[in-house]
């Protein structure tokens, strides 16, 4: 394989993994915008999405499409239940308290997953059975196209939701000014519930589409959350376009450095780049307002 086709190969991989980081980052953003907190259980939603899909299709033998929607539905309910059970009952909690609760949630979900599925790594068949396309010596698998396509669809749905539906606008209004949102009659706490449900759903989608290429086990959530968080911060916390672009940047850096340097260093290199960008432009690439809000 020539250097250039090797590079192209890493780029394909980077795009696939970067789409996932971008989607995890979108999940962080949605909850951050509604509550001002970083939901550290975000990675667990991704893991649960993959694991539940595996059980539904491999064990219960449900068809792919049905399994997909049921998995996303279950994880959405888990996200909503987490909000109602652990976040909602608190009166005027501090941001720090909430973040610690999400850490507890993450540990709980991970423990639960280990209890149910054990420590094995599972796999899913790719969504379509076609063989990889050969482009300039590199192989582009159909699953990569699925991942990219679904990510774009999720992004488009979000843009539509936040700009053209009244609930989406209300969620945006809560992010901008909670007092004003309450004054026009928006139930702010209900929007927080919606934000957890929506983040969980997006996380589950990410987990399902990545499993055929990256496999899944109970412990995958943490690293995905770290990378997704890196993408959210790099993109400018709260900015959805920033999240997607930053997801690609981190995915690409990671897969290229894994290929050309060593896969042992790939996590470190991706995070190093994040730190570097944050030194140079602390608000992230797309963030201006949001970054300032975060530092406050």
């Amino acid at each position, binding site marked *: 394989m020539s250097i250039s086709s090797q590079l192209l190969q890493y780029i394909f991989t980077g795009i696939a993994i970067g789409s996932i980081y971008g989607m995890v980052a979108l999940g962080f953003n949605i909850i951050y915008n509604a509550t001002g907190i970083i939901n550290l259980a975000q990675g667990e939603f991704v893991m649960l999405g993959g694991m539940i899909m595996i059980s539904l299709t491999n064990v219960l033998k449900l068809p792919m499409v049905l399994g997909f929607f049921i998995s996303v539905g279950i994880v959405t309910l888990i996200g909503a239940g987490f909000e109602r059970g652990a976040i909602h009952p608190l009166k005027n909690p501090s941001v720090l308290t909430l973040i610690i609760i999400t850490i507890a949630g993450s540990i709980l979900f991970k423990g639960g997953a280990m209890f149910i599925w054990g420590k094995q790594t599972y796999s899913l068949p790719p969504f379509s059975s076609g063989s990889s396309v050969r482009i300039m010596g590199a192989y582009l698998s159909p699953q990569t196209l699925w991942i990219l396509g679904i990510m774009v669809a999720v992004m488009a749905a979000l843009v539509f939701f936040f700009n053209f539906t009244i609930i989406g606008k*209300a969620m945006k209004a809560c992010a901008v000014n909670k007092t004003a949102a*309450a004054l026009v*009659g928006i139930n702010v706490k209900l929007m927080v519930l919606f934000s957890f449900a929506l983040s969980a759903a997006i996380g589950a989608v990410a987990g399902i589409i990545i499993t055929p290429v990256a496999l899944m086990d109970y412990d995958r959530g943490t690293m995905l959350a770290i990378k997704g968080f890196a993408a959210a911060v790099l993109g400018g916390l709260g900015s959805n376009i920033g999240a997607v672009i930053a997801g690609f940047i981190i995915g690409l850096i990671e897969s290229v450095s894994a290929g050309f340097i060593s896969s042992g260093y790939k996590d470190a290199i991706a995070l190093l780049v994040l730190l570097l960008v944050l030194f140079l432009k602390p608000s992230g690439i797309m963030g201006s307002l949001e970054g300032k809000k975060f530092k406050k």
Partner: protein
Amino acid sequence: MLKVRNLKSFYGYLQALRGVSIHVEEGEIVALIGANGAGKTTLLNSIAGIISSKKGQILFKDKDITHFPPQQIVKQGISLVPEGRQLFTPLSVMDNLILGAYQRYKRKNKDNIEADLDRVFHFFPILKERRKQLAGTLSGGEQQMLAIARALMSKPKLLLLDEPSMGLAPKVVKEIFRIILELQKEGTTIFLVEQNAKMALGIANRGYVIETGRIVIQGSSQELLGNKEIRRAYLGRGYKKVWE
């Protein structure tokens, strides 16, 4: 229509209202005047449900709404134009207005919303021109108009206004007060908080004076405008320099 009885509101341990009782009858404009820090905003925010730490009683159309959350209070027909306007600045003028009608959107009354948009555009034609602009890029006067228009979109029976004249040029203030009068004629009841006592009492039927969390004087606008103490404290000097 609105009865507040012996209301005490707290910020943590700090008590900002020390037993306030007021009432507003249907069709009235009632003014509340007082110096900085007297508790005017606290009273409005308590009625609107933004301040939840309170004792006493708030009745609206004989219903006890003291401990209703803000969204329930909007649903009852009370809308607050808050101090400092509190617009959704990164959203468009149109989106701000649509969100003002959020409660009714939810109940699928979408058809009436067009009519209400026409109504607020009739009051504030400038907002129609600016409807695609981001709220944060409007001038101060336009922002105040948008804040009022947004509150009107919920079709309130009772409109609470917190210092609508603040920071605006006299000409704009006049325009806003003219619209407040017009709203009254159309049947909206108005409770108006102002430091600009002269203008407020000029359009109000009755008024209250609040000092350090207590109502100290009340009466018809004529009485208040004739009251010596009020003339000395609130009408004599420029209102920016007023002390208790």
